[in-house]
């Protein structure tokens, strides 16, 4: 009996010592804290950029799908402009979704934004542009799911195309894709963990730095995992609440 107790006490002391070594000594908890802050910053701002790009690209793509026939009939400059912009969007989607995000990050950090010293900024831009491609396809499916009659009702009242999208179609599309969008956001949170590849000190990198400094892998990496897990579980819960709310308001 005493033996078991002593073993537990020893285990506990060892864990406590490791904990102190990893997080208390040299105020290393601060690294984790700063890393978490960076991760949240990157996720939040990249998410916002992603939604912005996503809405624009999705609007262009569905405008083209919806209007190309009638615009071609009327011809003119508008048709060629839309075709050109649609082509650019298509290229963007293909390139972004066809290459790994780590590679995009490295290209951004070492080539395109070489002059920037702000790693978090580079990460925000990279993950924003990356996420925009996925959000665009989510939005596009949402826009396509809105009944065609809604569009016609808007146009028949005198709204122009852009106004119809903005006031009538996109709000409805947004509502239907909101849960999917939130899941994309959760995925983005986890994806930003590759930011350390280019030396950005996000949460994962902070854990890894502590591991390197203390030669103690278990504590910092498990701590990092738990923090991600808690964030994801909380966000997933929130999405669940949101989904139920939306369903109720639809009746």
């Amino acid at each position, binding site marked *: 009996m005493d033996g078991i107790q002593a073993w537990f006490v020893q285990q506990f002391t060892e864990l406590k010592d490791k904990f102190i070594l990893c997080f208390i000594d040299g105020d290393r908890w601060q690294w984790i804290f700063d890393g978490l802050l960076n991760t949240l910053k990157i996720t939040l701002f990249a998410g916002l950029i992603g939604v912005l790009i996503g809405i624009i690209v999705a609007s262009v793509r569905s405008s083209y799908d919806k209007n190309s026939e009638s615009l071609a009939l009327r011809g003119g400059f508008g048709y060629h402009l839309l075709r050109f912009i649609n082509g650019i969007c298509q290229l963007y989607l293909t390139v972004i979704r066809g290459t790994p995000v780590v590679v995009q990050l490295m290209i951004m950090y070492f080539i395109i934004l070489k002059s920037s010293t702000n790693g978090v900024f580079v990460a925000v831009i990279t993950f924003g542009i990356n996420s925009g491609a996925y959000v665009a396809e989510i939005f596009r499916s949402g826009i396509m799911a809105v009944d065609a*009659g809604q569009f016609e*009702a808007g146009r028949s009242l005198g709204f122009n195309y852009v106004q119809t999208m903005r006031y*009538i179609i996109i709000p*409805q599309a947004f509502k239907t894709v909101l849960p999917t969008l939130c899941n994309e956001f959760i995925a983005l949170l986890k994806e930003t963990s590759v930011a350390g590849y280019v030396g950005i000190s996000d949460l994962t990198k902070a854990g890894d730095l502590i591991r390197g400094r203390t030669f103690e892998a278990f504590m910092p990496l498990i701590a990092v995992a738990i923090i991600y897990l808690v964030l994801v579980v909380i966000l997933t819960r929130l999405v669940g609440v949101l989904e139920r709310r939306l369903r109720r308001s639809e009746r």
Partner: protein
Amino acid sequence: MKDKLIEITGLKKHYNGGAVKALDGINAEIDKGEVVVIIGPSGSGKSTFLRSLNLLEIPTEGRILFDNVDITDPNVNINLHRQKMGMVFQHFNLFPNMNILKNMTIAPMTILKKSKAEAEEKAMQLLKRVGLEDRAEAYPSQLSGGQKQRVAIVRALCMEPEVMLFDEPTSALDPEMVGEVLEVMKTLASEGMTMAVVTHEMGFAREVADRVIFMDEGKIIEEGTPEDIFTNPESDRLKSFLAKVL
């Protein structure tokens, strides 16, 4: 003495590279204050005709003069003209994410730049006229079909249109709700609104129409007063159509 509001010449609408001739050379006129009812078998091009009038369908050929402006001219700002042409659809097409008041005020506020107070006052006035003033805060999903269609009509009226286009406004309704919608349309007609109505309600056509147009296979086969059309049909196609629906 009679003012032409809409003048349609040589209107054609082809689909699939001409394989489907939804409209095959339509000439017609609608005068100010006139109620024109369009009848015809399913697939005869009635919807396409009506939807061409506000360019929801872009004609393959032909001209549409509205207030003496050729709206098929690509340089014309069609949005300005659509504001003056209210449209009511078979499936109402209310905005499900907005309450009734918002459904009615969003266009006047956004497009005509009316103040909220002004737009809401006008909307409430119109809702009162169709007996739905107590449903202003309700959402479309909380209304019956007949109520939805009455809202759709007054939503279009909020833009103070010069003409109202109706595409089978009662076809999606339960029979007991048809009357309340037709009643609103009759009142509107009696107040002098110019109306083009596609409908299968022959009673309404007989009672309210100034002129009835019978379409088949993308063409106008016969047109005239309700008396001409219903009592003295000339063409065989109209006779056999009437035999089926009356």
